[in-house]
Structure formats: structure tokens, C-alpha cells
């Protein structure tokens, strides 16, 4: 004998859970689109690598006084 009770409370909880799901999905979309816009605003997308905390050899100019940067 299974107990099945559909109470108004369950519906309200479901509404709340779905609402939270919607908000979280909207937040994911927000951060994603914000990232796309911010990267596009840089003009040159390769500049984005400059935010990395690791030395990116590809970003270091090959000639000139760039050596100082590369040895850091």
C-alpha cells in the first residue's frame, strides 16, 4: 500500500524549485553572454590570454626588448 498524498504544499515547493532552476539557468546565460561581450570589446581576442596568470609564450614579442618580459 503506497501512500500518495498530493498536498498544496508539494505544489508550492515544486513552484519554488522550478523558480530557482529558472533563476540559475538565467544566471548561467547572463555570465556567458557577459563574457562574450567583454571579450568582443577587447577588439583583439588574443588579448584575452593576458588575463591568465601563466606566462604565455605566444603573447611575448619575438624581437626587441621583449626578453625582459620573457625571463620573468
Amino acid at each position, binding site marked *: 500500500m503506497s501512500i500518495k498524498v498530493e498536498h*498544496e*504544499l508539494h505544489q508550492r*515547493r515544486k*513552484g*519554488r524549485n522550478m523558480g530557482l532552476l529558472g533563476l540559475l539557468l538565467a544566471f548561467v546565460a*547572463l555570465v556567458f*553572454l557577459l563574457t562574450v*561581450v567583454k571579450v568582443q570589446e577587447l577588439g583583439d581576442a588574443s588579448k584575452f590570454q593576458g588575463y591568465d596568470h601563466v606566462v604565455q609564450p605566444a603573447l611575448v614579442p619575438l624581437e626587441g626588448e621583449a626578453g625582459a618580459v620573457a625571463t620573468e
Partner: protein
Amino acid sequence: MTDVSLEQTSHEAGMGDYFALLKPRVMSLVVFTALVGLVVAPVPVHPFIAFVAILCIAVGAGASGALNMWWDADIDRIMRRTAKRPIPSGKVQPGEALGLGLTLSAFSVILLALATNFLAAGLLAFTIFFYAVIYSMWLKRSTPQNIVIGGAAGAFPPMIGWAVATGGVSLESILMFALIFMWTPPHFWALAIFVKSDYGNAGVPMLTETHGRRVTRNHIMGYMIALMPVAIGIAFTSIGGPIYLATAVVLNLWFLKACVRVWRRDETQAEADNFAAEKAAFKVSLYYLFLHFSALLAEAALRPWGLGGW
């Protein structure tokens, strides 16, 4: 046993109850004025960044509303107008409102800082602090000038919008702040005269109850006179123009006339026509603010065609 569990859980909040904590009606004014502040600024903002910025300002305003409801739950319970709010009606626990308020405050400020700049985020943080702590916790229950100083919280949004675009504060943004700041007292006190409030029972010192309606009428007149140069002065800054100037002159004469009518009456006259002049002044005050900001928006919108501005 079923009955007992029903009794305990039937007050569980729904999504709408949490939304009501954010004072959606106040939010609409905040969204509009912040949007105008952002659009009239001389620096263009990417539409999506503008959207995120306005969203952050709206959520920040909502968060301060939730903190206000958490702090004021004791007096909200006593007053008829506020007794149905989520906390006094038992739908939301006070701790939940506090948690929601603090979380959304941090969320909105941090996201605004990441999406735009630190000045805008700092101004938003200060606005939330000002409304929740300076106004709700301190001034509201201690001085009849509470809404005058507290009005600053409602005046910040266009300044934040401007800071989102320009990253700074300027004469224009200070004047937009001053317009809302000086407008709040006559707007609110016109309402306070005709609404039969029970602030007295709740121990909130409202000017109408501490100093009487006569003094309140004088105060409305005083603030109206101080408001006019601010409203008209904006016309001569970089965001003003002939459209704004014409709108401002008409609106100021209209609101002045309404305030003079309120000022010259005594209580017998007011009660005889059921506060018709006070109700009219309150209605005019709503148009006053909305149309001033709409005129600023019109100036900015027409600028690309050489029609806006001087």
C-alpha cells in the same frame, strides 16, 4: 498527526513571497531613473552591459527592500498598510529575509563591479547601506526628517547609471540626484497629509504626527521652492536642452500651483473636500518626476539627429 504537520508547514513561502520582499513597485522607479542616468551619459554603453547594470541596480534596490522588511517587521505588524507584507503575515521567516537581503546585496554589488566599474559598484553598495542602515535602522524611528534624509537612497540610481557609463561623478549626475532628493519631501508629505496612517501607534515619528499638518504644509512649500532651481538648472547642463527646459518650466509651474493650494488651506477646508488638493498635489508629483526624466531621455534620444541638447 497530519493536521499538526499541516499546521506547521502551511506557511512555507512560495516564489512570489520572496519576490514581494524585494518591493517590486519601488524597483520600477529605480529601474527607470537608473536607465535614464545611464542613457543620457555621454559615453555609449554596450546594450547587454547596460542591461546587466540595470539588473544589478534593481536587484540591489530589492535587496535593501528585503533588509528593510527584516528590520521593520515589528512595526510592519502594527500598521494596517504593511501588515500583509511577507514577514508580518508569517509567509517568510525573518531570518530568510535577512539572508536573502544580504546575499542579493553582495551578488548585485560584485556583479556590477565585474560588469562595469568599481565606482558604480561602490555607489550601489553605499545606497544599500544608506537605505538599510542609515534610514531603516537609524533615522526612520528617531527623527521626523527621516524621509528627507532617507530620500537620498532613492536619489542615487541615476547617479549609479551615470557612473556605469562614465566611471565618474559629474555636475549632471549630482543634479539628477538632487532632483529626486528635493522632490521626495513634497511628494511624500502630500501623501502623509491625506492618508490616515498609524505611524504613531508604531512609534515612527512622521512630521504630520509630531509637528502637525500645518507645519507639514509649510515644509511642502519650502521644499517645492528649493526644488525649482534644481529642476530648471539641469536644462543648462550638457544633458539638458530646449525640450527639457520647456517641460521643466511647465511641470514646475504645475507642481508649484498644486503645492501653493495645499499650503494655503487649513484642516477644515481640507476635510470639507476630503483632501482633494493634497491628493491632486500627490498625483502631480508623480507626473513631475516621471516627465522630467522622460524629457532627459527625449533629449538624449534626439541628439543623434541634431535635435536634442543646445
